[in-house]
């Protein structure tokens, strides 16, 4: 009885927070879910998509009981086994990612509420009424003001504390429960990202309800180094937008060059189409070492930890603008700006200034003062050839390269006057600088590579924020029927294994009339390759969320608009209520929305939580080969696993045989393997015969193009009846099916996992 009272009190509290009395939709079973509330859904997913662990370390060294050896079935001193330790590590990574975005959201929200007040209305334009699908679904709240976003964020912060607590020594003893917690943390990540980007769009007046955003210049060749240059680096636009404001207010926008690295670059170009994108994180050290930037302003996430040291080497000034990274610098936030400028110019001192307007003023004044005195010259090819002659190709550079290639081979060729190999290697370089650090001959590898890379410039479309409701209405039917073969979301970091891969994937799938959406560094590098006509994919394909469109959604935090688009399909197109109804949304997406995430170059913990958040929502994610170092995948075994679902129309459980989608988190060895795999992971049980034939056409054709011989080995698992077979491969597939004794089976009317496991969600909830 006491327990019941406690539950009632808790529910009342949640209802108060989410303003349940506002009846825009009935409140579903899981508003503001806590750790146990979606656990049954997770366990159902993990039954089919079991965690696959590849331990990166055999030991645990988290506490002073250790180090503990976890090999050969041993448990640590606390009792933990190797699988559970991997899952704990994954949860920690997801929590880091979730915290980074949520704290970014928290900071930006505080900043914007200070500027506009908590009652500033959320208005995402004429074509977006469903403004916050993640917040509405997970939290159960329809946010109407910036102040409402704080309610969502407070919930996220509370859950993060509980999840982080569970990582302490001597608690959770189940790998599966840690996975459920990782899925929970990552779902929260999408809430935190959504808060951050909605706040930014509203508070900074970013583009919204528009597809055709400006094309902005990209590449270090685009930067006018004859002007004072200010580099903004990181993710949080509180720094760069205020900098732009300062320049505008002082009529200096045409006199000072602003350029950005990583997501801050994307944010800045959403605010000003005069700003330039240098490139992704892999270009950071190259650009810093070139000394082109007069002032570097850092904010947070994926900024290099050695920025002050690298900047000092080339005489660039540094201002640390956020508390996440203060680099041990003196905090000058309360000082007189002119005093800071004097010390930065005269003494070459670096400071932390945690006040955006002051940081902007100091950055501009310092840049204008020091720029005329600084030399900004690239090496010439002749100088590069001479420097390259120091290299003995000893091979140490290859040993320390995270992308496993030998830059020594490229430099040896440069010494002979041949830049072809090093140009190719530049595309594989993740820009970490470990090769140069280890070089026994002190060859300036980065400067040599920069000469090879040249000054080419590209175009990137500015991020456009949420997918419009009107677009969802147009594509909802073809996506769920399968006639638009899928939504491919290329997200996150872009460095591995070859920067060109992303542009190749975009081109391949846009050409085939998939919808291609991009965010973060992947969105940048998609534009860093030109076709034979000199066009990037942003110039070649329309910017619409429609078949054959290539859509830059925005920065890392804009990933929430991709998960949001999937939820919108369930809510707007299929008319399923979303409020506090996560399980129904995820079940719909898993079974009926042919979407596949591709985090091809993923490096960060944020990429881990973004991807795992997509997984909980039922979206599979393909990763590059190095991502096996994330330690965990979610894999099925297509021929052995249980592919039964409930046919909600007939109310009976049916064995579909088809692994659709086959995996939830999957590592591909090569781009060639990834191409057909991405197409395969867009297959859903809900496909109509026409839609399935379209999807199989692409699966087979990509398989033949990139793998070569014959038909995919598992094609029989995806052909339900003869009309599923694409016309162009009819004869070949029929012959193969006959040879292996394939039998036709009926497509499912309304496939769902609800009803196949213990859940509070009634079957009727998925029928629309």
């Amino acid at each position, binding site marked *: 009885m006491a327990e019941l009272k406690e539950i009632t009190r808790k529910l009342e509290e949640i209802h108060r927070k989410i303003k349940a009395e506002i009846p825009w939709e009935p409140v579903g079973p899981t508003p503001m879910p806590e750790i146990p509330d979606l656990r049954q859904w997770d366990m159902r997913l993990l039954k089919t998509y079991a965690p*696959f*662990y*590849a*331990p*990166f*370390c*055999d*030991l645990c060294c988290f506490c002073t009981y250790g180090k503990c*050896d*976890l*090999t*050969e*079935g041993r448990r640590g001193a606390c009792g933990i086994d*190797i*699988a559970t330790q991997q899952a704990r590590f994954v949860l920690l990574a997801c929590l880091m990612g979730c915290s980074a975005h949520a704290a970014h959201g928290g900071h930006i929200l505080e900043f914007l509420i200070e500027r506009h007040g908590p009652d500033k209305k959320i208005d995402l334009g004429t074509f977006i009424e469903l403004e916050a699908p993640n917040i509405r679904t997970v939290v159960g709240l329809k946010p109407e003001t910036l102040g409402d976003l704080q309610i969502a964020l407070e919930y996220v912060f509370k859950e993060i504390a509980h999840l982080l607590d569970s990582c302490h020594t001597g608690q959770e003893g189940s790998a599966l429960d840690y996975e459920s917690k990782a899925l929970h943390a990552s779902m929260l990540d999408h809430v935190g990202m959504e808060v951050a980007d909605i706040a930014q769009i509203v508070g900074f007046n970013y583009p919204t309800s528009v597809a055709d955003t400006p094309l902005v210049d990209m590449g270090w060749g685009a930067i006018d180094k004859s002007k004072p240059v200010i580099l903004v680096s990181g993710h949080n636009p509180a720094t760069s937008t205020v900098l732009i404001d300062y320049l505008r207010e002082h009529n200096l926008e045409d006199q000072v060059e602003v350029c950005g690295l990583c997501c801050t670059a994307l944010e800045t170009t959403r605010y000003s189409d005069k700003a330039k994108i240098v490139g992704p994180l892999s270009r950071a050290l190259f650009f810093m070492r070139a000394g082109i930037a007069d002032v570097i302003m850092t904010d947070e996430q994926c900024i290099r930890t050695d920025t002050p040291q690298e900047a000092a080497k080339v005489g660039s000034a540094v201002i640390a603008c956020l508390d996440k990274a203060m680099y041990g610098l003196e905090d000058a936030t309360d000082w007189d700006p002119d005093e800071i400028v004097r010390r930065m110019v005269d003494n070459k001192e670096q400071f932390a200034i945690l006040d955006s307007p002051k940081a902007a003023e100091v950055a501009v004044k310092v840049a204008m003062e020091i720029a005329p005195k600084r030399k900004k010259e690239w090496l010439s090819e002749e100088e590069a050839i001479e420097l390259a002659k120091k290299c003995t190709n000893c091979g140490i550079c*290859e*040993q*320390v*390269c*995270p992308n*496993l290639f030998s830059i020594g081979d490229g430099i040896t060729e440069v010494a002979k006057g041949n830049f072809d190999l090093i140009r190719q290697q530049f595309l594989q370089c993740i820009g970490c600088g470990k090769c140069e650090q280890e070089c026994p001959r002190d060859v300036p590898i980065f400067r040599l590579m920069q000469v090879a890379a040249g000054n080419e410039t590209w175009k990137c479309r500015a991020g456009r924020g949420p997918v419009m409701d009107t677009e969802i209405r147009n594509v909802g039917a073809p996506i769920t029927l399968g006639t638009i073969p899928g939504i491919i979301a290329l997200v996150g970091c872009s460095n591995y*294994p070859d920067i060109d891969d992303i542009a190749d994937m975009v081109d391949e799938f846009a050409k085939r009339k998939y919808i291609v959406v991009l965010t973060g560094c992947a969105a940048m590098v998609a534009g860093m390759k030109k076709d034979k006509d000199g066009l990037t994919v942003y110039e070649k394909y329309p910017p619409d969320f429609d078949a054959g469109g290539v859509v830059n959604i925005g920065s890392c935090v804009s990933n929430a608009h991709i998960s949001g688009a999937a939820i919108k399909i369930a809510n707007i197109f299929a008319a399923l209520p979303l409020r506090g109804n996560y399980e129904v949304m995820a079940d719909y997406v898993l079974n009926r929305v042919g979407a596949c995430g591709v985090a091809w170059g993923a490096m960060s913990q944020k990429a881990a939580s973004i991807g795992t958040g997509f997984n909980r929502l039922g979206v599979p994610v393909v990763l590059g*080969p*190095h991502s*096996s*170092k994330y330690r965990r*995948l979610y*894999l099925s*075994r297509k021929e*052995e696993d249980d592919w039964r679902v409930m046919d909600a129309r007939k109310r009976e459980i049916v064995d579909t045989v088809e692994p659709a989608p086959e995996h939830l988190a*999957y*590592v*591909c*060895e*090569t781009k*060639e*393997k990834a191409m057909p*795999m991405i197409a395969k992971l867009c297959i859903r049980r809900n496909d109509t015969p026409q839609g399935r034939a379209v999807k199989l056409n692409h699966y087979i054709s990509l398989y033949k193009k*990139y*793998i*070569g*011989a*014959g038909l995919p*080995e598992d094609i029989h698992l995806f052909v339900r009846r003869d009309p599923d077979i694409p016309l162009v491969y009819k004869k070949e597939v029929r012959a193969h099916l006959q040879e292996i004794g394939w039998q036709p089976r009926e497509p499912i009317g309304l496939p769902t996992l609800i009803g196949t496991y213990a859940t509070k969600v009634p079957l009727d909830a998925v029928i629309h």
Partner: protein
Amino acid sequence: MSAVLPRHRVNVLTGTKSARLIEDAAEYADFIKKAKRPLLVIGPLLLASTADGKLLLEYALDIAKAAGIPICATAQTKGKVVELGVKPDSVYDVVEIANALKDPEWQGVKKEGNHDLVILFGIRSDLGNQSLSTLKHFAPHLKTMTLCKHYFPHANYSLPNFKKDAKWQEFLESLIANLKKGD
């Protein structure tokens, strides 16, 4: 014995159980011959050629043929294998085959029972070492071996880091010769 460092430092072992380094092709051949159900997993690095123009894949196919080992072709390797006139016994990506091998009840690529020796050849070294880690920790019912020119700490048996490709090729040729010898 001091620990052997892998060629690529991202694969440095953080642990206690590392691969036994073997340089003698006859000893390697003995391990393969003694296995009841070995499996050769071949990856896309074998699509490259040696300095003298021989396709690395040919070594793999010669080894498979000499010892009668079934092949699992990963990534896009299948295309070239077929082009060379061989039908791979199975086609999985490396994480998929590792996932199946973890299950002691899996019947293997020949449906004759799970494999007792898995030989990795031509997989990118970070992914290869991670896949071997999976097998080391979660497939105690089998042994693993590598044929690449670098040391892989997570395998049971590994070749050393060959400084010269020619020495590695010599090893592979000697291995093939030893496998052909019979018992």
